[in-house]
């Protein structure tokens, strides 16, 4: 009896889908479509672009030339044969870009636009485009032209797909060296940041030093400013006219040195959060056991502390590595002649308008980012399982010498971080460095400079507000659908993948992908190109994953049985969503919105390709003013971003506390 293994033949029962089910599916469909249109398709467009090359294929065209009378025609001859006979164009001359033109009369050394000789041209294959004046022709029919018209015949390039772009990239030593540079910078910055952040986190979690709260606050400051701001501060300190230039002993700050110092600054809080979490979950009992076994402090450190925090350390290392290698603002400001991958994308696209090569560099930049992302995800999973274990939290005991050492270390880091911000503030207020050191607000008069003026600031504020509101709504609803919908497994798995993807996509790559996708006139969404909408979409997408994970974590803590209970009470899911899920998750929702706001204020990488004259942004203005040599106004604009974000954070803290005390009364017993 018990051995009868298989199901009897027949149809597997499927429940009918009720209106709730349809609404949920519709919601998820809309958000999945959003992710497809805002992420998957642009990336696909970029990837396919990187395989496209443009070139003139002379074998596709045939010409005939008449005699002086214009009635007697010579034999048809291909353009390729003409070129071979003349030796006019070498193969590399035939490479081109999407709007290349090759003048047809160049193939005829005797050509004169005044002669009565007539010319005929036709394509020998289906795709042989050429221009007569401005008219694009593409036909295998002969077309007869007098010489004055033939003067204005241009051959157009045809596209071929293949690996040529990649071959070209890897055989170009200048471009190739950027890979080395990027890896070098990212590795050095990662080692330093993780070491420094570990020391800091260790002090906060494992010592009894005073002023922990203040240090935590200072350590979080870099999150509030664009990554290029430390570059500006470093120029003031160690640049050509820097007041601490002497400390460098002849080294230059413009280059790897500056990039590394700046990178340590802006990645520090990210690494600190992760390592601090890892250290805070360790178990007091392990230390008591070590002590009872008479293990030395040093041995305990290496056998208990480090293994306990190893996932945090690995995760922090990969996050830092990704942040540095994909960062664009800092090397732009302080990199000098030192090329890195992110800069190459910018140069290829903005400088040389070589979009295909930009796409190739983007693909190259994707590789380390995706590897780091995958490793980080694996490690995070293990970290979660550590977290769920019940343990007794570690209680540090006062130890004067140790506490003072830790205090000294935190003070050093604190001075470094606060110092960078202070130098920027100083720079913004100085009238004319280094000649007129009196204070003025002249540098805040942005309307006098290029870069978008005060309008750029207000645009940024608008972008940040829209991103916070729209992004949070999309992200939270999407996460709810992934976590709480029943059935529809494949759809949810695809959705989850799409939601995790943005974390692995560097901002530069996303921005470039958006150009390829949205700037295509055939795209039905073309109309958002150059508007605030595309900036909002790109920013929401760029920062989607962290918000998604925050929402998922909050939703996972909610009893999975709320939905069945509400259904059994014959209540639609949206009523449960509005009355219970959202109120219970409000702290997480506020966290997501402030995260989106702050990042929208500071981001440069994705939007630098997408802003238009009407939608210039404060963070981009910092970049552009710095580029134009207006460093002090750039610092001033950077400080505007800092004030705004600091204010937003304080308001957020107040709002959270108020809302918590009002709507979350149930949390206290």
């Amino acid at each position, binding site marked *: *009896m*018990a051995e*009868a*293994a*298989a*199901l*009897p033949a*027949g149809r*597997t*029962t*499927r*429940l*009918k*889908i*009720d209106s*709730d*089910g349809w609404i949920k599916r519709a919601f998820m469909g809309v958000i999945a479509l959003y992710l497809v249109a805002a992420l998957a398709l642009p990336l696909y467009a970029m990837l396919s672009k990187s395989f496209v090359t443009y070139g003139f294929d002379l074998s596709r065209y045939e010409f005939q030339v008449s005699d002086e009378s214009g009635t007697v025609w010579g034999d048809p001859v291909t353009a390729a044969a003409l070129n071979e006979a003349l030796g006019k164009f070498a193969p590399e001359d035939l490479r081109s870009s999407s709007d290349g033109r090759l003048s047809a009369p160049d193939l005829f050394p005797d050509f004169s636009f005044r002669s009565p000789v007539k010319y005929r041209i036709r394509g020998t294959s289906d795709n042989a485009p050429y221009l007569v004046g401005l008219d694009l022709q593409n036909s295998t029919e002969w077309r007869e032209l007098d010489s004055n018209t033939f003067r204005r015949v241009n051959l157009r390039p045809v596209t071929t797909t293949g690996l040529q772009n990649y071959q070209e990239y890897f055989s170009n030593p200048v471009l190739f060296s950027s890979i080395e540079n990027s890896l070098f910078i990212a590795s050095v910055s990662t080692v330093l940041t993780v070491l420094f952040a570990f020391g800091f986190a260790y002090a906060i979690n494992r010592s009894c030093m005073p002023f922990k709260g203040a240090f935590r606050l200072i350590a979080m400051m870099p999150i509030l400013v664009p990554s290029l701001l430390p570059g500006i501060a470093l120029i003031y300190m160690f640049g050509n006219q820097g007041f601490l230039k002497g400390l460098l002993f002849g080294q230059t700050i413009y280059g790897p040195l500056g990039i590394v110092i700046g990178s340590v600054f802006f990645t520090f809080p990210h690494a600190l959060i992760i390592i601090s979490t890892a250290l805070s979950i360790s178990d007091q009992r392990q230390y008591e056991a070590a002590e009872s076994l008479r293990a030395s402090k040093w041995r305990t450190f290496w056998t208990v502390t480090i293994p306990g925090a190893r996932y945090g350390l690995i995760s922090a290392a990969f996050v830092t590595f990704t942040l540095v290698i994909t960062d664009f603002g800092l090397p732009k400001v302080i990199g000098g002649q030192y090329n890195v991958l992110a800069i190459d994308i910018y140069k290829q696209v903005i400088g040389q308008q070589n979009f295909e090569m930009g796409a190739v560099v983007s693909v190259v930049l994707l590789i380390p980012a995706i590897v780091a992302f995958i490793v980080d995800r694996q490690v995070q999973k293990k970290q979660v399982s550590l977290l769920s274990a019940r343990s007794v939290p570690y209680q540090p005991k006062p130890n004067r010498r140790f506490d003072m050492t830790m205090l000294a270390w935190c003070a050093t880091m604190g001075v470094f971080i606060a110092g960078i911000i202070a130098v920027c503030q100083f720079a913004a207020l100085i009238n004319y460095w280094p000649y007129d050191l009196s204070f003025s607000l002249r540098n805040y008069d942005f309307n006098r400079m290029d870069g978008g003026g005060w309008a750029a600031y207000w645009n940024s504020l608008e972008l940040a507000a829209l991103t916070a509101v729209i992004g949070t709504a999309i992200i939270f609803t999407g996460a709810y659908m992934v976590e709480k919908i*029943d059935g529809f497994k494949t759809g949810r798995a695809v959705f989850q993948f799409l939601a995790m993807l943005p974390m692995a996509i560097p901002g530069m790559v996303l921005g470039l992908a958006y150009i390829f996708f949205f700037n295509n006139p055939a795209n039905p969404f073309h109309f958002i190109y150059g508007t605030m909408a595309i900036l909002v979409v790109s920013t929401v997408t760029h920062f989607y994953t962290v918000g998604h994970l925050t929402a998922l974590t909050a939703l996972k803590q909610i*009893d999975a*049985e*709320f939905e*069945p*209970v*509400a*259904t*059994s*009470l*014959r*209540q639609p899911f949206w*009523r449960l969503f509005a*009355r*219970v899920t959202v*109120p*219970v998750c409000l702290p997480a929702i506020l966290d997501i919105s402030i995260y989106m706001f702050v990042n929208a204020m500071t981001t440069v990488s994705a939007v630098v390709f997408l802003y238009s004259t009407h939608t210039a942004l404060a963070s981009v203005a910092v970049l552009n003013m710095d580029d134009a040599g207006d460093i002090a106004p750039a610092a001033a604009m950077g400080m505007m971003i800092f004030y705004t974000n600091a204010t937003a954070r304080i308001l957020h803290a107040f709002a959270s506390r108020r809302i918590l005390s009002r*709507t*979350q*009364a*149930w*949390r*206290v*017993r």
Partner: protein
Amino acid sequence: MSELQAEGAVATPAEPSYLKIEGLWKAFGDFIALREVSLDIARGEFICFLGPSGCGKTTLLRAIAGLDPQSRGTIRQGGRDISELPASQRDYGIVFQSYALFPNLTVERNIAFGLENTKRPKAEIAARVRELLALVGLPDQAKKYPAQLSGGQQQRIALARAIAINPGLLLLDEPLSALDAKVRVHLRHEIKELQRKLGVTTIMVTHDQEEALSMADRIVVMNHGVIEQIGTPTEIYRHPATLFVADFIGETNRIATTYSGGAVKLGDATLQTRETGLADGAAVTVAVRPEDVLPHAIGHEAGTKPNHLPVRIVDMEFLGSYWRTHLASAALGGTPLVANFSMNAVRRLGLSAGAEMTVELPAERVLVFPQGDTRGGAHG
């Protein structure tokens, strides 16, 4: 045997069944969680699904609730085929082990959750909430949040919320498992009372046999996705259909032997058993409950009466209301026999460890199950 007849009257529902489950199968990938489960439940009955974890009892409940649809088979409720209906279109209230109370809503808003949004006037809802709070014995807790209540109180609120909408069927998924022992026993009784008062057909899933025995009108014992036996608590206990049921509900001494002519041989001794319908020479397992090992007399009355065994007391454990006694018998070879002797019997016979005595295993209490098959059995 008069006891059996009285039970039989309840065991088969007289009126057409309210919930009729036919040929239910459920597969999770290759794993078969339910095999051909069929079940009739009468209106107003209190049914317990009882079995070890992984036996399919919760799967069956979730199929009835429409939370995880069955793979094959039909479910009819009140004459309506609900097999393919989504949960929202079925008619039941549900209570989970976790209570699943909405933490940000007060007790009264929790209870009113299913009443609001139904065009009922506010005053009517408020009155209904008061009525329900009184019914579950928490009239003055309306304004509190769930976190401010004890586990037992929270479970009562969950119950009130589930019955607020007057469901045709009440589903309880291990409702008492998260509570401590004292509260559990108390709430058991209250739930049963409430169910009787409301007359709502109720299905409770539990792995706790005591809970099932004390609350259910009928118990559905499940194992490996199959229903082992359906019956009243006494039926299940007194007349287990399979060795699994005998083992899972209550304790048993198990002895392997062969069956022959209405009796089994245990070493030198012969035990008369119940009528089994088994062929002579069949390999069987004999099961006797510790409380069915009756202390007869001190000393040996060698082999005179049928079903009497000479034994020696190896060890006695005092467990409050009775003595758990380990017995050894030459007749049983090395197999130990466990008996529960009442305080009175121990005192009356002056039993102590090391004493020789005679015990009786009454024929109608000796359960016989064919070996190698967990199905079929004593009065199959």
